[in-house]
Structures are given as structure tokens and as C-alpha cells.
């Protein structure tokens, strides 16, 4: 089982690498969809085993929610938002893709380094899966920084959420149920609000390039 989770966590990490090396917005959304599916898979397996062993169905329910929200609803919403806005070819990233990927590699190394002392000091073990998921959080964050367009930022935020979710899964078998539900409600609201705002931004600024939003300074 552990081996399987290891594989999945690496796959999630890989999917985020794929994400950062993408250039098109539709590709971002697709990659996010795949990553969410992977996460749903993790939740499904974990939920199944817990359901079998302890007769608790929390995580299974959450798995269903993930599939509904992250694999189906949110990508759909993002596609729709993207469809609403005028298409314009613009360079969406600040740095070259290879450099971004390299930095992301560095981030993985960094997250390994930064939590590596935890085990040695106290005998408390944080496994590789947690570190991988923490790297996903950092990469998601970095993705937000590297992309100019609003939808890219939303995707980045969602990837951070994914990373956090996987971290929670791997480290503590998920948060308490009610908290998880709350987090999902928040997330879906956030994405909807951001979606509405992207539409408005597009209307006001005639672009979804966040760089244009720099009037308020000083």
C-alpha cells in the first residue's frame, strides 16, 4: 500500500511539473483536472481501506466531493470563464519554461531539506509522500508567481489547495470531516468569486493580464 501511495504522490508531483511547463491556459486546466483525478484516486484508496477497517466513510465522501468539484465542476467553470473572455495571444510567463522547471526542482530539494531535521531530532517520521505534497504546495505557489494571467493564478491557487489536501491525506489521513467540508465550501466560493472577478477584470481592463492591475501603488 505504502508503495502505491509513494507512486501516486510522485505522480502528483510530476503533474505539477507538467503544469509549470505548460504554456496554454487550456492545458493548465487539463493538467489540473488530471492532478485532481490523481488526488481523488488517493482519497478513494485511502477512504476505501479506512471504510473497510474502521467502518468510517468520511474520506470516501470526500473523494466523491473531489471528483464532483475538482475534476468536473471547477475545470468546467474555468473553461467557461476562459470562453467568456476575448482570446488574445500574449506571453503568459515571466521566465523561460526551463528556468521555471529548474527552480521548481530546487523547491523540491528545498522542501526535502527544510523538513529533513524533523525526523532526526525526535524520531517522529515524516514520510516522502508528505514532502512531495509540500513541494506541490510550493510549486503551486511558484506557478502563481510565474504566470501573468488571472486564470493562471486561479489554477495556481487550486494547485496549492491540492497540495495541502494531499499533505493532509498523507500525514494525518485527512482533516476532521467538518473541517474538510468547510475547506471545500471556502474553496468553491473562492474560485467562483475569482471567476466573477476575472470576467469583470476582462471587461474593465480589456485583458486578464494581471500585470495591468498596477495602478494602486505606494
Amino acid at each position, binding site marked *: 500500500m505504502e508503495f502505491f501511495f509513494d507512486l501516486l504522490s510522485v505522480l502528483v508531483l510530476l503533474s505539477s511539473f507538467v503544469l509549470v511547463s505548460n504554456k496554454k491556459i487550456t492545458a493548465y486546466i487539463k493538467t489540473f483536472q488530471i492532478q485532481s483525478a490523481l488526488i481523488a484516486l488517493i482519497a478513494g484508496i485511502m477512504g476505501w481501506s479506512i471504510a473497510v477497517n474502521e467502518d468510517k466513510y468520511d474520506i470516501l465522501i470526500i473523494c466523491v466531493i473531489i471528483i464532483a468539484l475538482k475534476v468536473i465542476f471547477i475545470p468546467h467553470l474555468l473553461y467557461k470563464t476562459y470562453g467568456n473572455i476575448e482570446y488574445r495571444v500574449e506571453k503568459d510567463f*515571466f521566465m523561460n519554461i526551463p528556468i521555471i522547471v529548474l527552480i521548481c526542482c530546487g523547491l523540491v530539494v*528545498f*522542501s526535502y*531539506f*527544510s*523538513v*529533513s*531535521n524533523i525526523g532526526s531530532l525526535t524520531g517522529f517520521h515524516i514520510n516522502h509522500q508528505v514532502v512531495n505534497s509540500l513541494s506541490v504546495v*510550493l510549486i503551486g*505557489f*511558484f506557478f*502563481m*508567481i510565474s504566470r*501573468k494571467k488571472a486564470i493562471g*493564478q486561479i489554477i495556481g491557487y487550486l494547485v496549492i489547495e491540492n497540495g495541502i489536501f494531499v499533505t493532509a491525506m498523507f500525514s494525518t489521513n485527512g482533516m476532521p470531516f467538518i473541517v474538510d467540508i468547510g475547506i471545500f465550501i471556502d474553496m468553491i466560493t473562492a474560485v467562483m468569486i475569482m471567476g466573477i472577478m476575472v470576467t469583470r477584470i476582462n471587461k474593465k481592463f480589456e485583458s486578464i493580464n*494581471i*500585470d495591468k*492591475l*498596477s*495602478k*494602486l*501603488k*505606494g
Partner: protein
Amino acid sequence: MDWLTPSSLLYWSIIIYLTAAIVAIFFYRHPHLCTLFAQSGCIFASALGAASALKMILFDQETLIITPFESTVPFISISMTLDALSAFFILILSILVCCVSLYSIGYLKHYYNKRNVSAFHALYIGFILSMIFVFTAGNAVFFFIAWEIMTVISYFLVVFESEDVNEKAGLIYIVMTHIGAAFLMIAFMIMFVYTKSFDIFGSSEAIPATAKSLMFVFFLIGFGVKAGVVPVHVWLPYAHPAAPSNVSALMSGIMIKTAIYGLIRFILCYLNVHNTWWGILILCIGIVSAILGVAYALMEHNIKRLLAFHSVENIGIILIGLGISFVAFSQGNGILGGLAISASLLHTFNHTLFKGGLFLGAGSIQYATHTKDIEKLGGLIKKMPVTAVMVLCFSLAISAIVPFNGFVSEWLTYQSLFSIIIPGQTGINIISILAAAALAMSGALAAACFVKLFGISFLGKARSECALNAAEVPASMNTGMGILALFCLVIGLFPVFFLKVVDKVVFSISGTTVIGELQGGFLIAWYPINVSGNAITPSAIFIASAVIILATAALIRLVGGKVSERKYGTWDCGFRELTPRMQYTATGFSKPLRIVLRILYKPGRMLETEKGDSSYFPLSKKYRVWTEPVFEKYVYDPFLTAVKRFSLRIKLSVQTGSTHAYLVYIFAAVLVLMLYNRLA
């Protein structure tokens, strides 16, 4: 006779002040009544205050503690403590307030229906009360609160008179004094850390020597800004002229003395002077302030700015006295320390009297002519004879000229300088002799400056319509000034009585009395002030002069007989008529000194010629002379510009408006903190 104790007198005085303020607010629709009630309340209250202070100094040497109420807020307690030093400053305050309030009754007339007079009264009384609290604060936090309230209220008073012009004045004032207050706060904190108490009257033994020196420096900065010593004097020539004249009189007369009080209270009484360099530092600051203050005053043609610079000078003189006393105390020479601090306290008192009076005089001039510019005045002595006499008295007093009070305190300062020079000590000797030179030079420059002030504005012919149409000011204004002038003369002639008062204060501070050195009693008014054999008897000099004047007049009459006196125009070199424009101007008067001391002013001049048909017949010529505010231009402005530029640069490079940059900050913070956690 319970209510005659100093504490209850002070209590009543405060209550009357408060009542006056409330009444003033109540009558805000009737400026006349409002002024009358508020100011007569102030006069009455100040009389009580003075009585309380005098009683305290002369009869009760015990320290009194008055606590109106205990605050529930931690570390804040309102406790007033009255000892001889506080009482002395309250005495000065009360005398000045009494005269200024009398003056204000007439002076405020020109604000009626233009400004909110009742608000002015409330602020004015609040200002007085805050100063009383500063002088009586028993713990450092209360002191600080009173100090800050005083600053803020005086800020409002500074900006009361007019609008945009004063923006800068008020700003510089409140900014500088607040930064000074921050240093005070640091010093108080150091005090609390070591002694676990804010009690000003407590012991400072628990504080280590280094911390004491640090506290000294902070106190010096904090109080120095308020006192207006060079180089932190720049607010003073802006703030004092901007305020209404009665307020400037209070500000210059007593508010800047709160700093002197603070220096004595905290450094001498609380910290006890341990290091000689403290005194030497103060002495140096005093020398620089005395010289530069008067030097800049010379170049001013705005009466009130001129007077403000003189405040810098006089604070310098007070600090010279204080510096000597610190040096003497640190050497264990109590008698000399006592003498020097008497000189310094007496000068504080004197400066309050004559500078208060001069600002009132400036107010009278402004009241009568609506201008503060000396160049527009002239010949006022004929329009305002009473005011002229008063201003002349104050001018003589501030120039330390003989029968007036300024001389007595400067003489004592000279004597303490004289006594501190002992063969063999290098630094102190050199600085002391330089201080004597500085004192002499500042006296002469002050005389030059006041010849200019009095000569240009009161003598000669009127230089403008304003001066031509001037009329004598109301009697209440002149009475207020008259009392001050009388005090100046009386202290100048019979200094011994006042020195006894000062001596009681000095005794309570340092435990040493110089009364053995300063002989004499009140009844024998012509008893000399005698410092180890060097003596002056101003009253004897005065009597001798009077006798000589009378005798000369009689003798001349005897020798020369009765001769006729003819009125004729001033000699005009044969031209037909002398116009007022041909007189020497204030600018012209100060020109030689402007050139001699050009390093201080960086003067510039420009001749603009409007060409006519031929170069020999220009249509008009304009000659402009200016001096530069050196400290502002070369120290403060560059500093301020640098700070602003720094702020702008940081602002625009940090808060760029780019969402990505903002995200980068958070990201960087995450990474740095993770690294910190890993390495910690």
C-alpha cells in the same frame, strides 16, 4: 488657616483656572465677556499660584505630595509634587501669566468676531495648566503626559492665528519636539528598568554609570529640542512668531524653561552629576547657542523672529550657568555649583520677565501697526510713548545693561566662570574662558540687535503708512507690560532679595547654600552682592548715577547759564528735504556684521536694473539682500529630502502594484522562515 497652605493654594489656583476655561467656553457667543472672565480668572489664579509658590519657597521646605486621583490604568498615576524647585518655576510662571493675562484683555480685541476667542481661552488655560503639571509632576509618566499635552496645545496655539503661512511653523515645531519627547521616553524607560519605579524623587542609585550617561544624553536631546538649543533650534524662530503675541510671550517666557526645569530636575536632582563631561557638554552647547542665537537674531527684521532667536541666545546663557554648576558638582565643589545654578535660575527668571515683556511689546506694535516687519516702522516713540519706554526697558534688560536684571544674572554667570578657572585643568579652563568671551560677545551683539530693534522701529521717521497711523495701545496692555518692566528694574536694583529666594531653591536642590557668599538682607537694599570679594551694588550705582546726572545738569546750568534751544530739521547736507527713505534701514544697520560674520549667514545680493533710454538713466533699480538659514539649508533640508527620497524609493520599489511581486514577498517569507526553522 488650613486653606493657606501651599498645596491648597495651588489646588485652588488650578480649580480657578479650570473654572475660567469652562466659563470661557460657556460664553463663546460673547467674546467680550468671555475674555474678561477667562483672563481675570487667570490673573486671580496666577496670584494664588504665586502665593503658593512663594510660601513654599520661603517657609515650607518640605516636599508636598498632592494626588488628585489615582488612575486605574497601569503605570499611570497622577501625582503632583511640590518642592522648592517646582515652586520656583511655578512662581515664574504665575508672574508671567498674571501680566500676560492682563495684557490679553486688551490684546485679544482684534480677534473678536474673526476667530473663536473662547476656544483660544480654553487652549490658553490648558496650556498654562499643562505647564503647571509639568512643573509639579511627581512621576515620569505623568511628567511625560503633561509634557506632550503642553506640546500639543501649544501647537494648536501656534497655528491659531492664521492659516497657510503657519503650516510650516506648527509642523516643524510639533515634529521636532515630538522626536525630542521620544528620547525622553527612552530615558524614562531606562530609569524604570533599573529602579522599577517612575518616581522622579526617588533614588537613582540602582542605575549603572553607563546607563546614567546614556540617560543624560537622551535627556539632553529631549530637553534640548524644547529649549531650542543650537543645532536643534530651528523650530523656535518659526513657532514663536507664528503664535499670537501673548502666547509667544508664554512660550518663550516660560515654556522653553520647562526644558531647563527638566534638565535640573532629572540630571541634577535625579541622576546626580557624576561625570565632568556632562557639564562640559552643556557648557559647549550653551556657548554655541548663545553666540549663534544672537548672531541669527541680528539678521532678522521680523520683530518676533528676532526675539525668538534671542530666546536661543538666552537659553545658551542659562545653559552656560548650568554647565558650570554641573562641572562644579561633579568635582564636589558644592558652593560653586550652588552659585552657578543660582546664576542660571536667576537668569531663567529674568529671561522670563524681559522676553515675555518683549513679546508683549512686539504684540503691541503689531496691534498698533498691523505689521511685524521692522523695515516698515519708525518714529513710534511719538505715537506710542508708553510702549516705547517699556520696550526700551526690556531691551536694556536683555542686553544685560546695568540697572536692569539681565546684568545681575550675567554678572553671576561671569563670577561662576571666574571661580571655576583654576590653574592646571586644561579643558575646563579653555572652555570657561571661551564661555566668558561668548557671553561678552553675545551681550554686545544683543545690544547691537536691540539698538536696531528699538532704533529702527521707535526712532526716526515713519517708514510706512502703518507706522504713521499707529496709536497707543489700550491701558490694560501697557499695565501688563509695565508690571514686567517694573520687575526687571527692581530685580536689577535690589537683586539680593530675589537671590535669597533663588538660594532657598538651590539649597533644596544641592544642600549647599551660597547665602554666606551672598550677603545682605532685604531691608538694606544697597547691600552688595558679594562673591568672594567681588561685589556689585546696582542700587549704589543707580544712586550715584542719579546724583551725577542732577549735579551735572546743575553745574552746566551754573557754568553755561540759560541758553536757547532751537528746533530745526535734521542736517541734510544741503538737500532740500530729508525723506524717511533716506534713513538707515534695519538691513543697512546690520550690514557690517552681516559681512563680518558672513560664514554664518551666507548672504547674497542682487541688483536688478530696468534699463532706460541710456544706461545712465535706468527706469528703476532694485537691490535685494538676503541671508540663508544655514542650519535648515545645509543640515535639515538635505536630511529631510534624503528621508523623503528614501521613503519614495522604497515605497515604489516595494509597493509596486504588481500582484506577482506581492506573491513573491510571501513566497520568500515562507522560504526564509523554513530555512530559519531548519537552521535554528
